[in-house]
Protein backbone atom coordinates (compact mmCIF):
# COMPACT_ATOMS: atom_id res chain seq x y z
CA UNK A 1 0.00 0.00 0.00
CA UNK A 2 1.30 3.44 -0.91
CA UNK A 3 2.29 5.90 1.79
CA UNK A 4 0.17 8.84 2.89
CA UNK A 5 1.97 11.55 0.92
CA UNK A 6 2.10 9.57 -2.28
CA UNK A 7 0.18 11.12 -5.16
CA UNK A 8 -0.47 9.78 -8.61
CA UNK A 9 -0.96 12.42 -11.28
CA UNK A 10 -2.98 10.98 -14.14
CA UNK A 11 -0.91 11.28 -17.30
CA UNK A 12 -3.17 10.94 -20.32
CA UNK A 13 -1.06 12.89 -22.75
CA UNK A 14 -3.00 16.11 -22.46
CA UNK A 15 -1.34 19.26 -21.24
CA UNK A 16 1.77 19.86 -19.25
CA UNK A 17 2.17 17.92 -16.04
CA UNK A 18 5.50 19.46 -15.05
CA UNK A 19 4.04 22.42 -13.16
CA UNK A 20 1.47 20.29 -11.33
CA UNK A 21 4.07 17.70 -10.34
CA UNK A 22 6.56 20.32 -9.14
CA UNK A 23 3.93 22.14 -7.08
CA UNK A 24 2.79 18.89 -5.42
CA UNK A 25 6.40 18.02 -4.63
CA UNK A 26 6.90 21.43 -3.13
CA UNK A 27 3.80 20.84 -0.99
CA UNK A 28 5.37 17.65 0.34
CA UNK A 29 4.17 14.94 -2.01
CA UNK A 30 5.98 12.04 -3.59
CA UNK A 31 4.66 12.21 -7.13
CA UNK A 32 4.16 9.43 -9.65
CA UNK A 33 3.01 10.30 -13.16
CA UNK A 34 0.97 7.42 -14.47
CA UNK A 35 -1.19 6.45 -17.39
CA UNK A 36 -1.69 2.89 -16.11
CA UNK A 37 -5.19 2.00 -14.87
CA UNK A 38 -4.03 -0.52 -12.26
CA UNK A 39 -1.48 1.86 -10.79
CA UNK A 40 -4.04 4.67 -10.58
CA UNK A 41 -6.57 2.42 -8.84
CA UNK A 42 -4.20 1.40 -6.08
CA UNK A 43 -2.87 4.94 -5.43
CA UNK A 44 -3.13 6.65 -2.06
CA UNK A 45 -4.48 9.75 -3.75
CA UNK A 46 -4.98 10.94 -7.30
CA UNK A 47 -4.72 14.28 -9.07
CA UNK A 48 -6.51 14.66 -12.38
CA UNK A 49 -5.06 17.62 -14.30
CA UNK A 50 -6.12 18.83 -17.71
CA UNK A 51 -6.15 21.64 -20.20
CA UNK A 52 -7.97 21.84 -23.50
CA UNK A 53 -11.37 20.58 -24.57
CA UNK A 54 -13.68 18.38 -22.47
CA UNK A 55 -14.70 16.02 -25.29
CA UNK A 56 -11.14 15.31 -26.34
CA UNK A 57 -10.02 14.69 -22.74
CA UNK A 58 -12.82 12.18 -22.09
CA UNK A 59 -12.16 10.44 -25.38
CA UNK A 60 -8.51 9.92 -24.44
CA UNK A 61 -9.33 8.85 -20.87
CA UNK A 62 -11.80 6.25 -22.16
CA UNK A 63 -9.56 5.01 -24.95
CA UNK A 64 -6.79 4.36 -22.41
CA UNK A 65 -9.13 2.74 -19.89
CA UNK A 66 -8.44 5.52 -17.42
CA UNK A 67 -11.99 6.86 -17.07
CA UNK A 68 -13.11 3.65 -15.33
CA UNK A 69 -9.90 3.53 -13.33
CA UNK A 70 -10.49 7.02 -11.92
CA UNK A 71 -14.15 6.19 -11.17
CA UNK A 72 -13.18 2.98 -9.34
CA UNK A 73 -10.48 4.88 -7.46
CA UNK A 74 -13.00 7.51 -6.37
CA UNK A 75 -15.36 4.80 -5.14
CA UNK A 76 -12.73 3.73 -2.59
CA UNK A 77 -13.22 7.10 -0.87
CA UNK A 78 -9.53 7.94 -1.14
CA UNK A 79 -8.80 11.59 -2.04
CA UNK A 80 -9.18 12.75 -5.64
CA UNK A 81 -8.45 16.27 -6.86
CA UNK A 82 -9.43 17.54 -10.30
CA UNK A 83 -7.73 20.70 -11.53
CA UNK A 84 -9.28 23.05 -14.13
CA UNK A 85 -10.46 20.78 -16.97
CA UNK A 86 -9.75 17.91 -14.55
CA UNK A 87 -12.39 19.39 -12.24
CA UNK A 88 -14.88 19.76 -15.09
CA UNK A 89 -14.57 16.13 -16.20
CA UNK A 90 -15.58 15.02 -12.68
CA UNK A 91 -19.06 16.22 -13.65
CA UNK A 92 -21.82 14.32 -15.47
CA UNK A 93 -21.71 16.14 -18.77
CA UNK A 94 -20.48 19.13 -20.72
CA UNK A 95 -21.91 21.21 -23.52
CA UNK A 96 -18.50 22.35 -24.75
CA UNK A 97 -18.46 21.77 -28.57
CA UNK A 98 -21.44 19.39 -28.47
CA UNK A 99 -22.68 17.15 -25.66
CA UNK A 100 -20.15 14.96 -23.87
CA UNK A 101 -20.48 12.59 -20.95
CA UNK A 102 -18.05 13.07 -18.06
CA UNK A 103 -16.98 10.83 -15.20
CA UNK A 104 -20.20 11.54 -13.31
CA UNK A 105 -18.53 11.72 -9.90
CA UNK A 106 -20.05 15.12 -9.13
CA UNK A 107 -23.70 15.69 -10.14
CA UNK A 108 -24.02 18.68 -12.41
CA UNK A 109 -23.07 20.09 -15.78
CA UNK A 110 -20.33 22.03 -17.47
CA UNK A 111 -21.80 25.01 -19.33
CA UNK A 112 -20.51 28.07 -21.15
CA UNK A 113 -19.94 31.17 -19.05
CA UNK A 114 -22.84 33.48 -20.02
CA UNK A 115 -22.04 35.96 -22.81
CA UNK A 116 -23.69 38.85 -20.99
CA UNK A 117 -22.77 39.62 -17.40
CA UNK A 118 -25.02 40.47 -14.46
CA UNK A 119 -23.79 44.02 -15.07
CA UNK A 120 -25.31 43.95 -18.59
CA UNK A 121 -21.87 44.18 -20.19
CA UNK A 122 -20.44 41.66 -22.69
CA UNK A 123 -18.31 39.10 -20.86
CA UNK A 124 -14.67 38.85 -21.93
CA UNK A 125 -13.48 35.29 -22.38
CA UNK A 126 -11.51 33.44 -21.33
CA UNK A 127 -12.03 34.33 -17.71
CA UNK A 128 -8.38 34.72 -16.87
CA UNK A 129 -6.36 36.13 -14.01
CA UNK A 130 -6.14 36.24 -10.24
CA UNK A 131 -9.57 36.33 -8.61
CA UNK A 132 -10.74 36.20 -5.00
CA UNK A 133 -12.56 33.05 -3.91
CA UNK A 134 -15.26 33.18 -1.26
CA UNK A 135 -17.50 30.58 0.38
CA UNK A 136 -21.12 30.68 -0.85
CA UNK A 137 -23.56 32.03 1.72
CA UNK A 138 -24.03 29.60 4.59
CA UNK A 139 -20.80 27.68 3.95
CA UNK A 140 -17.52 27.68 5.75
CA UNK A 141 -14.26 26.04 4.84
CA UNK A 142 -13.71 23.90 7.94
CA UNK A 143 -12.50 20.42 7.00
CA UNK A 144 -12.35 21.25 3.28
CA UNK A 145 -9.34 21.77 1.01
CA UNK A 146 -9.81 25.49 1.65
CA UNK A 147 -9.60 25.06 5.44
CA UNK A 148 -7.49 27.86 6.90
CA UNK A 149 -7.48 30.02 3.75
CA UNK A 150 -8.53 33.61 4.46
CA UNK A 151 -11.82 34.52 2.80
CA UNK A 152 -11.26 36.17 -0.60
CA UNK A 153 -7.91 34.46 -1.12
CA UNK A 154 -6.92 34.98 -4.77
CA UNK A 155 -6.22 32.06 -7.10
CA UNK A 156 -5.24 31.97 -10.78
CA UNK A 157 -8.02 31.08 -13.28
CA UNK A 158 -8.04 30.43 -17.03
CA UNK A 159 -11.25 29.00 -18.50
CA UNK A 160 -14.14 29.43 -20.94
CA UNK A 161 -16.64 27.03 -19.39
CA UNK A 162 -17.88 26.65 -15.84
CA UNK A 163 -18.85 23.56 -13.86
CA UNK A 164 -22.15 24.03 -12.06
CA UNK A 165 -22.85 21.44 -9.35
CA UNK A 166 -26.45 20.20 -9.08
CA UNK A 167 -26.26 19.98 -5.27
CA UNK A 168 -25.68 23.40 -3.72
CA UNK A 169 -23.75 21.73 -0.90
CA UNK A 170 -21.01 20.55 -3.24
CA UNK A 171 -19.99 24.11 -4.08
CA UNK A 172 -17.60 25.39 -1.42
CA UNK A 173 -15.94 28.30 -3.20
CA UNK A 174 -17.00 30.80 -5.84
CA UNK A 175 -15.67 33.90 -7.51
CA UNK A 176 -17.39 36.76 -9.27
CA UNK A 177 -16.92 37.95 -12.85
CA UNK A 178 -19.06 40.63 -14.49
CA UNK A 179 -21.45 40.18 -11.54
CA UNK A 180 -21.81 36.49 -12.35
CA UNK A 181 -21.04 33.85 -9.76
CA UNK A 182 -18.42 31.45 -11.13
CA UNK A 183 -17.99 28.07 -9.36
CA UNK A 184 -14.39 27.85 -8.14
CA UNK A 185 -14.15 24.84 -5.82
CA UNK A 186 -16.33 21.76 -5.35
CA UNK A 187 -15.88 19.14 -2.70
CA UNK A 188 -17.84 16.22 -1.34
CA UNK A 189 -16.06 13.77 0.91
CA UNK A 190 -12.87 12.65 -0.82
CA UNK A 191 -13.66 14.21 -4.19
CA UNK A 192 -12.56 17.79 -4.78
CA UNK A 193 -12.09 20.01 -7.79
CA UNK A 194 -10.69 23.48 -8.41
CA UNK A 195 -11.53 25.53 -11.48
CA UNK A 196 -8.37 27.58 -10.87
CA UNK A 197 -4.79 26.34 -11.05
CA UNK A 198 -3.41 25.82 -7.53
CA UNK A 199 -0.03 25.03 -9.09
CA UNK A 200 0.07 28.59 -10.48
CA UNK A 201 -1.52 30.35 -7.52
CA UNK A 202 1.58 30.97 -5.42
CA UNK A 203 1.73 30.08 -1.72
CA UNK A 204 -2.10 30.00 -1.43
CA UNK A 205 -2.21 27.31 -4.11
CA UNK A 206 0.58 25.31 -2.48
CA UNK A 207 -1.28 25.42 0.84
CA UNK A 208 -4.40 24.06 -0.84
CA UNK A 209 -2.33 21.22 -2.30
CA UNK A 210 -0.83 20.55 1.13
CA UNK A 211 -4.33 20.30 2.59
CA UNK A 212 -5.26 17.86 -0.15
CA UNK A 213 -2.21 15.80 0.85
CA UNK A 214 -3.41 15.69 4.45
CA UNK A 215 -6.95 14.59 3.53
Amino acid at each position, binding site marked *: MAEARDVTVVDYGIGNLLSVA*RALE*HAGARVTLSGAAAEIERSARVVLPGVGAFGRAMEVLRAQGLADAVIRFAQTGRPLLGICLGMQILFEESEEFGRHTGLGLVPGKVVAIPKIGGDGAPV*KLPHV*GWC*PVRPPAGHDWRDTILDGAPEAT*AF*YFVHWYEAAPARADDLIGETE*YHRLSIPAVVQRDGIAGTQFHPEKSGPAGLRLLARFLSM
Partner: protein
Amino acid sequence: MPFTRLIARLDIKGPNLIKGIHLEGLRVIGDPQEFARRYYEDGADELIYMDVVASLYGRNSLTDIVRRVTEDVFIPMTVGGGIRSCDDVREMLLSGADKIAINTAAIGNPALISEIARRFGSQCIVLSIEAKRKTGGGWECFTDNGREHTGRDVVEWAREGIERGAGEILLTSVDREGTRSGFDVELVRAVSDAVEAPVIASGGMGSFAHLAEVVTDGHADAVAMADILHYGRATISALREAARAANLDVRRVDG
Protein backbone atom coordinates in the same frame (compact mmCIF):
# COMPACT_ATOMS: atom_id res chain seq x y z
CA MET B 1 -13.10 41.32 -12.25
CA PRO B 2 -9.58 39.90 -12.14
CA PHE B 3 -7.06 41.93 -10.21
CA THR B 4 -4.62 44.31 -11.91
CA ARG B 5 -1.43 42.30 -12.22
CA LEU B 6 2.05 43.30 -11.12
CA ILE B 7 4.47 41.47 -13.38
CA ALA B 8 8.23 41.14 -13.14
CA ARG B 9 9.86 41.18 -16.56
CA LEU B 10 13.19 39.44 -17.01
CA ASP B 11 15.10 40.14 -20.21
CA ILE B 12 17.56 37.36 -20.86
CA LYS B 13 20.68 37.05 -22.98
CA GLY B 14 22.30 33.62 -22.92
CA PRO B 15 22.35 32.53 -19.27
CA ASN B 16 22.10 36.07 -17.87
CA LEU B 17 19.46 38.49 -16.71
CA ILE B 18 20.25 41.73 -18.54
CA LYS B 19 18.87 45.23 -18.84
CA GLY B 20 19.27 47.88 -21.49
CA ILE B 21 18.00 51.32 -22.34
CA HIS B 22 15.57 51.56 -25.27
CA LEU B 23 16.13 47.77 -25.45
CA GLU B 24 19.79 48.35 -26.34
CA GLY B 25 23.15 48.78 -24.58
CA LEU B 26 22.59 45.62 -22.59
CA ARG B 27 24.19 45.19 -19.17
CA VAL B 28 24.43 41.93 -17.26
CA ILE B 29 22.54 42.01 -13.97
CA GLY B 30 22.80 38.47 -12.66
CA ASP B 31 21.38 34.96 -12.46
CA PRO B 32 17.75 35.01 -13.64
CA GLN B 33 16.85 32.08 -11.37
CA GLU B 34 17.80 34.02 -8.28
CA PHE B 35 15.83 37.10 -9.34
CA ALA B 36 12.78 35.06 -10.39
CA ARG B 37 12.69 33.30 -7.05
CA ARG B 38 12.98 36.61 -5.19
CA TYR B 39 10.12 38.19 -7.17
CA TYR B 40 7.94 35.13 -6.65
CA GLU B 41 8.59 35.13 -2.92
CA ASP B 42 7.83 38.85 -2.81
CA GLY B 43 4.38 38.26 -4.33
CA ALA B 44 4.70 38.89 -8.10
CA ASP B 45 1.50 37.93 -9.93
CA GLU B 46 3.33 36.69 -12.98
CA LEU B 47 6.75 36.54 -14.65
CA ILE B 48 7.66 37.42 -18.22
CA TYR B 49 10.88 36.09 -19.73
CA MET B 50 12.13 37.60 -22.96
CA ASP B 51 15.17 36.30 -24.77
CA VAL B 52 16.29 39.58 -26.28
CA VAL B 53 18.73 38.18 -28.83
CA ALA B 54 16.78 35.08 -29.87
CA SER B 55 15.30 36.62 -33.01
CA LEU B 56 18.75 37.69 -34.08
CA TYR B 57 20.27 34.22 -33.73
CA GLY B 58 17.12 32.28 -34.57
CA ARG B 59 17.08 30.32 -31.34
CA ASN B 60 15.88 30.70 -27.81
CA SER B 61 17.94 29.84 -24.75
CA LEU B 62 15.03 30.00 -22.36
CA THR B 63 13.81 26.39 -22.18
CA ASP B 64 16.44 25.41 -19.61
CA ILE B 65 15.96 28.59 -17.59
CA VAL B 66 12.20 28.07 -17.51
CA ARG B 67 12.40 24.35 -16.75
CA ARG B 68 14.69 25.08 -13.81
CA VAL B 69 12.53 27.88 -12.42
CA THR B 70 9.41 25.67 -12.23
CA GLU B 71 11.06 23.98 -9.24
CA ASP B 72 10.37 26.91 -7.00
CA VAL B 73 8.21 29.45 -8.78
CA PHE B 74 4.46 28.77 -8.80
CA ILE B 75 2.87 31.61 -10.75
CA PRO B 76 2.07 31.98 -14.45
CA MET B 77 5.05 32.46 -16.73
CA THR B 78 5.15 33.99 -20.19
CA VAL B 79 8.13 33.26 -22.40
CA GLY B 80 9.08 35.10 -25.56
CA GLY B 81 11.89 35.67 -28.01
CA GLY B 82 12.55 33.81 -31.25
CA ILE B 83 9.35 31.74 -31.29
CA ARG B 84 8.54 30.89 -34.91
CA SER B 85 6.34 27.83 -35.02
CA CYS B 86 3.83 25.66 -33.20
CA ASP B 87 6.69 23.30 -32.37
CA ASP B 88 8.54 26.14 -30.62
CA VAL B 89 5.37 26.89 -28.66
CA ARG B 90 4.95 23.25 -27.68
CA GLU B 91 8.53 23.04 -26.45
CA MET B 92 8.07 26.14 -24.30
CA LEU B 93 4.80 24.89 -22.81
CA LEU B 94 6.37 21.52 -22.01
CA SER B 95 9.20 23.35 -20.27
CA GLY B 96 6.71 24.93 -17.88
CA ALA B 97 5.69 28.15 -19.63
CA ASP B 98 1.98 29.00 -19.48
CA LYS B 99 2.00 31.48 -22.34
CA ILE B 100 4.31 32.42 -25.13
CA ALA B 101 4.92 35.91 -26.51
CA ILE B 102 5.51 36.51 -30.21
CA ASN B 103 6.49 39.60 -32.14
CA THR B 104 8.81 39.14 -35.16
CA ALA B 105 7.31 35.85 -36.38
CA ALA B 106 3.76 37.20 -36.10
CA ILE B 107 4.63 40.33 -38.07
CA GLY B 108 6.19 38.19 -40.81
CA ASN B 109 3.34 35.67 -40.80
CA PRO B 110 0.18 36.90 -39.04
CA ALA B 111 -1.53 33.53 -39.73
CA LEU B 112 0.82 32.01 -37.15
CA ILE B 113 -1.23 33.71 -34.43
CA SER B 114 -4.39 31.84 -35.46
CA GLU B 115 -2.49 28.63 -35.90
CA ILE B 116 -1.15 28.78 -32.34
CA ALA B 117 -4.55 29.86 -30.99
CA ARG B 118 -6.30 26.93 -32.64
CA ARG B 119 -3.80 24.40 -31.39
CA PHE B 120 -3.09 25.64 -27.86
CA GLY B 121 -5.86 28.14 -27.08
CA SER B 122 -5.74 31.91 -27.21
CA GLN B 123 -4.93 32.08 -23.49
CA CYS B 124 -1.46 30.82 -24.50
CA ILE B 125 -0.57 33.65 -26.88
CA VAL B 126 0.63 37.05 -25.92
CA LEU B 127 1.18 39.40 -28.83
CA SER B 128 4.32 41.35 -28.04
CA ILE B 129 4.44 44.81 -29.59
CA GLU B 130 7.48 47.09 -29.56
CA ALA B 131 6.07 50.57 -30.15
CA LYS B 132 7.82 53.80 -31.14
CA ARG B 133 6.17 57.15 -31.57
CA LYS B 134 5.90 58.41 -35.14
CA THR B 135 6.79 62.03 -35.83
CA GLY B 136 3.40 62.66 -37.37
CA GLY B 137 1.51 61.14 -34.41
CA GLY B 138 0.56 57.54 -33.61
CA TRP B 139 2.97 54.66 -33.09
CA GLU B 140 4.79 52.21 -35.32
CA CYS B 141 5.53 48.53 -34.55
CA PHE B 142 9.20 47.53 -34.45
CA THR B 143 10.99 44.22 -34.16
CA ASP B 144 14.43 43.11 -33.00
CA ASN B 145 14.53 45.27 -29.89
CA GLY B 146 13.27 48.39 -31.59
CA ARG B 147 15.76 48.25 -34.45
CA GLU B 148 13.66 47.11 -37.42
CA HIS B 149 10.79 49.14 -38.85
CA THR B 150 7.69 47.21 -39.86
CA GLY B 151 5.57 50.05 -41.24
CA ARG B 152 2.62 48.73 -39.18
CA ASP B 153 0.50 50.97 -37.02
CA VAL B 154 0.44 49.78 -33.39
CA VAL B 155 -3.28 50.20 -32.71
CA GLU B 156 -4.25 48.54 -36.01
CA TRP B 157 -1.86 45.65 -35.42
CA ALA B 158 -3.13 45.17 -31.87
CA ARG B 159 -6.70 44.90 -33.19
CA GLU B 160 -5.68 42.51 -35.93
CA GLY B 161 -3.66 40.35 -33.51
CA ILE B 162 -6.59 39.95 -31.15
CA GLU B 163 -8.95 39.17 -34.02
CA ARG B 164 -6.54 36.49 -35.16
CA GLY B 165 -6.60 34.90 -31.73
CA ALA B 166 -4.00 36.47 -29.45
CA GLY B 167 -5.24 36.47 -25.86
CA GLU B 168 -3.27 39.36 -24.51
CA ILE B 169 -0.96 42.20 -25.55
CA LEU B 170 2.43 42.98 -24.11
CA LEU B 171 2.95 46.58 -25.12
CA THR B 172 6.48 47.87 -24.77
CA SER B 173 7.29 51.50 -25.42
CA VAL B 174 10.77 51.47 -26.94
CA ASP B 175 10.96 55.24 -26.38
CA ARG B 176 10.47 54.86 -22.64
CA GLU B 177 12.08 51.46 -22.06
CA GLY B 178 14.89 51.67 -19.49
CA THR B 179 14.51 55.44 -19.07
CA ARG B 180 12.61 55.40 -15.73
CA SER B 181 10.66 58.40 -17.02
CA GLY B 182 7.21 56.79 -16.85
CA PHE B 183 5.06 54.74 -19.20
CA ASP B 184 3.80 56.11 -22.50
CA VAL B 185 0.31 56.43 -21.01
CA GLU B 186 -1.21 57.73 -24.21
CA LEU B 187 0.02 54.66 -26.10
CA VAL B 188 -1.29 52.26 -23.47
CA ARG B 189 -4.68 53.94 -23.40
CA ALA B 190 -4.94 53.97 -27.20
CA VAL B 191 -4.36 50.21 -27.35
CA SER B 192 -6.37 49.28 -24.21
CA ASP B 193 -9.38 51.16 -25.47
CA ALA B 194 -9.10 49.61 -28.93
CA VAL B 195 -9.10 45.94 -27.88
CA GLU B 196 -11.15 43.78 -25.52
CA ALA B 197 -8.16 41.70 -24.45
CA PRO B 198 -5.92 42.55 -21.49
CA VAL B 199 -3.00 44.90 -22.13
CA ILE B 200 0.27 44.68 -20.22
CA ALA B 201 2.06 48.04 -20.08
CA SER B 202 5.83 47.79 -20.28
CA GLY B 203 8.71 50.24 -20.47
CA GLY B 204 9.53 53.27 -18.40
CA MET B 205 8.52 52.54 -14.83
CA GLY B 206 10.60 54.67 -12.48
CA SER B 207 8.30 55.07 -9.49
CA PHE B 208 5.00 54.00 -7.97
CA ALA B 209 3.33 57.12 -9.42
CA HIS B 210 4.03 55.78 -12.92
CA LEU B 211 2.26 52.52 -12.07
CA ALA B 212 -0.81 54.29 -10.71
CA GLU B 213 -0.93 56.56 -13.75
CA VAL B 214 -0.75 53.81 -16.38
CA VAL B 215 -3.48 51.81 -14.62
CA THR B 216 -5.80 54.73 -13.91
CA ASP B 217 -5.26 56.86 -17.02
CA GLY B 218 -3.79 54.28 -19.40
CA HIS B 219 -6.38 51.57 -18.56
CA ALA B 220 -3.64 48.95 -18.34
CA ASP B 221 -4.75 45.53 -17.06
CA ALA B 222 -1.25 44.64 -15.96
CA VAL B 223 2.07 46.37 -15.44
CA ALA B 224 5.42 44.85 -16.34
CA MET B 225 8.44 46.16 -14.52
CA ALA B 226 12.10 45.41 -14.87
CA ASP B 227 14.96 47.63 -13.79
CA ILE B 228 13.03 49.28 -10.94
CA LEU B 229 13.01 45.78 -9.41
CA HIS B 230 16.37 44.51 -10.67
CA TYR B 231 18.26 47.47 -9.22
CA GLY B 232 16.27 47.29 -5.98
CA ARG B 233 14.73 50.75 -6.30
CA ALA B 234 11.39 49.21 -5.33
CA THR B 235 10.01 45.83 -4.33
CA ILE B 236 6.84 44.14 -5.57
CA SER B 237 5.47 43.97 -2.04
CA ALA B 238 6.02 47.69 -1.39
CA LEU B 239 4.45 48.57 -4.76
CA ARG B 240 1.51 46.29 -3.99
CA GLU B 241 1.00 47.97 -0.65
CA ALA B 242 1.14 51.42 -2.27
CA ALA B 243 -1.32 50.27 -4.92
CA ARG B 244 -3.76 49.02 -2.28
CA ALA B 245 -3.42 52.27 -0.37
CA ALA B 246 -4.23 54.13 -3.60
CA ASN B 247 -7.34 51.94 -4.08
CA LEU B 248 -5.99 50.16 -7.13
CA ASP B 249 -7.55 46.73 -7.46
CA VAL B 250 -4.54 44.49 -6.86
CA ARG B 251 -4.41 41.08 -5.26
CA ARG B 252 -3.98 40.81 -1.53
CA VAL B 253 -1.11 38.47 -0.74
CA ASP B 254 -1.45 36.46 2.47
CA GLY B 255 1.97 35.45 3.66
